């Protein structure tokens, strides 16, 4: 699991950081991104490039996003 806490980074750096990690992601690895809002543009990039994601809102300004390239790895959030 690659932890990517982007809560204090100015937009749109978090998207770029996530995509840079996604490029190098091994088949069964998962990125756990923590962000202050739901990064919808990122989802389009991930989906269009064969990836999957799970987006969980924990609080008003706290989102957990799990990203993988694998079609088999189960994406889940431990607190839901």
């Amino acid at each position, binding site marked *: 699991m690659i932890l990517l806490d982007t809560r204090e980074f100015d937009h*749109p750096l978090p998207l770029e950081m996530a995509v840079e990690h996604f*490029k190098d992601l091994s088949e069964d690895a998962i990125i756990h991104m923590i962000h202050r809002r739901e*990064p919808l*543009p990122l989802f389009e990039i991930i989906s*269009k*490039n064969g990836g999957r994601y799970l987006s969980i809102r924990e609080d008003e300004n706290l989102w957990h996003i799990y990203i993988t390239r694998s079609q088999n790895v189960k994406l889940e959030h431990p607190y839901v």
Partner: protein
Amino acid sequence: MFNGLSLDQAPPLSVVIRFFITVPVFGILLSLIIFFNPHEVLIPTHPISLAAVHLMFLGVITMSMFGALFQMQSVLGGRPIPSALGNAFLIHLFLVIGIFALCGAFIFSLPELFIIASIFLGASILYCANLILPLLFGDITHDTLRGMRLPLIALSLTAVLGIVMASEYANSSFSSVHEAVRASHYSFGLIGWIAALIIAVAFQVIEMFYVTTPYGSWCKRNAFRIISASLLLKVLWIFTHLPYSWVFDLIMGALLSGFIFTTLKRLNQRKRRVSDVSIWFWQLGMALLSLAILTYGAFIGSGYDALQSVALIAFALFALAIILGMMGKIVPFLVWFHLSSAGYMDAPIMSNIIPATRAKGVFSLFALTSVTMIGGVFCLESLLVGAIIGGGMFGLLLLNLIHALRLYRDTLIHGKRFG
């Protein structure tokens, strides 16, 4: 509550870029007009001055804002503009023809051109408002989208009043309410269209781009109501010749001052204090808006004409500062996003699309342009220097945009796709 961005239905890059890339072209033209006619541009009622004012407010400011509207409506609203490609083409084309016709009409005193300008500018502006406004009603909860209603309505009223005045210029016959129409045209255009749209955009981007605390909900809820009511009452007062119409200017000035204070406070309290040229643009923009408010207030009190010129120039520069700052953020993001979502995983990183040194170059030239242009009201040589520096700034902006588009095209042609 939907609080993010959606680019699922984002318009193609060309929709937004066609407006943005036209901006520096009109900016260079404006610089040339100022350079070759410094005396005339400082006389508010001179045709050359009117041509310059419309080049700035239509060719530079409105042109940029139309591009931003096409992007923001789709991104924030989730209800995309129908046939964005074709509609953007028509609106942009009509706007360009209309601006050239209007400026030509003023400069060459050709009545026919006023009619052509009215047709094309009216068609472009009213069609754009008619296209986007219906998408902003209904179950819209986003503050920025709700805030965009007033600017589009105000822009439509500005256009209608502009058409009325153009017909007066075409016939060289001015009605008894010409001055009232002119004052209303300015009020709706400057405050209702430009200032209100910048406030609406700030509600979204200051918090999102710079990780600040959000603007207060009272502020978001009531800012546009106060501006709308003040504008309508001011226009009513002007047309009915009632006294104390300046009270409404005072209310709008107080509201704009509150906006400046809260924006600067948020920028100063941001969590991650990294250097960013777009923040410098916001800070300088707020300083210019403060100067515009102060000098306009002083003009109302003293009647000294030069102060009104300073207020108008400072206000235009305020809007330009925000536009340049936002363009420097939006263009690299759009290029990167469109390439990345199309699977070009070797898309250039955003900081390479418009390099920081070039972005700082635009800022430095803009700051110098601001000082010299405002100083130009009192010293003609300063205005000439301002025109040269301003031309250079728009030239560099054009180069930056071309560089970004070249990177986009090269990646499309030679880029490696993911997988």
